[in-house]
């Protein structure tokens, strides 16, 4: 990699207008790591793997084979921009490498305007607040998505 940072896409963020691309410096390379060990541990079926690859093949992203921690170490990057995810495995990889790489997790566009850190328990408790902005375009934030500048493959 020619720069010291990358965007590391994961299975919950396979698109090029994710806010992670606004947080990262312009033209930051996007990568996806085909971590066979992880995929196999989850016993994902071929249907699921193919759907992901279908999508990756249509995007300006470099797909790299290998164990995620090893790949990120080999790229010798200082900073990795990661779309926010609930996947515990991504967090584990970031924790393991945090002594040598800075990981910046970037939230997706909001569906509603709510306190991100609140630990909700029941849906209708959430819904009573969410209803105020969920029926507004862009949750009433006035923000519009525009595609960021990306490098070619």
């Amino acid at each position, binding site marked *: 990699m020619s720069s010291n940072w990358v965007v590391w896409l994961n299975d919950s963020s396979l*698109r090029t207008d994710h806010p992670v691309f606004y947080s990262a410096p312009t033209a930051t390379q996007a990568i996806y790591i085909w971590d066979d060990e992880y995929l196999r541990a989850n016993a994902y079926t071929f249907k699921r793997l193919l759907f992901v690859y279908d999508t990756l*093949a249509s995007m300006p992203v470099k797909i*790299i084979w290998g164990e995620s921690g090893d790949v990120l170490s080999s790229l010798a990057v200082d900073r990795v921009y990661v779309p926010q995810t609930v996947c515990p495995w991504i967090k584990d990889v970031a924790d393991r490498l945090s002594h040598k790489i800075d990981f910046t997790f970037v939230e997706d566009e909001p569906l509603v305007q709510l306190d991100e850190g609140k630990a909700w328990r029941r849906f209708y408790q959430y819904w009573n607040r*969410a209803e105020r902005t*969920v029926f507004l375009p862009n949750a009433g934030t006035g923000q519009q*998505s525009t595609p960021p500048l990306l490098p070619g493959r």
Partner: protein
Amino acid sequence: MIEYLETDFENREDIIAYVRKLSPWAEGNESCIQGGAAHMNALLDLLEPEKYGRTRNFGNGRVSRLSPYISRGIVSLNSVRNRALNQSEKPERAYKFIQELAWRDFWRRVARTQPELLWKDVETYKTGFDASEYLSDLPVDIIQGRTGICCIDYFINELTTFGLLHNHARMYLASYIVHFRRVRWQAGAFWFMQHLVDGDLASSNLSWQWVASTYSNRPYIFNLENVNKYFGDLIDTSGEANRDLNMDYSSLHSMLFPRLGVTDVE
């Protein structure tokens, strides 16, 4: 040494062959559901939030089929909501559709702030049984879709063949596994994540807990009459082909939860 994988292909058959070579251990065949933004955009163009609201619970209802694209982040919840608003005369006509998007947002928020809940029981089962009384593994007849209950086998076949299942059918199947067969929800949730092209850890696992009653006030159960109402046009819902489900809710409740008193459960 960094090993970059191929991204230029002549056609989809080449992608299929390439992924087979990359991960030869992966079970099953390709699904007709194809990834990529172009396919997602085609579905967005067909979005009919009002019809969704009226028909979404039916097996042949006007659902969006956007779920795999939302789960894999090919489109954001925000973009889908904006499109739904654009395609509805008034926001309230897209109410149910947007509320379903909110359920996803809710599950994600729960999983983000409390990741330990993804695989652990949030609460105890409200079924009269302790978690230790549930099987840890899925029985083979379920994995193979040979339970002998016609509608359940149909749903299992949909799941394993296409990697996609109507949301209502997911609830039936989850309820059957947890309550009729007394299997821990985690076994079913892992199985769903393996197969579902739209497998989303937060939505799927926490919904399993909702059905199981470890994240709701009571267990979700269903009977044949309910399946017939929503899937009767698609599946053989005769009593003979679905014996174990063919009873009223009161009898079902007594059979499934003998340690509980008589309650209204649906």
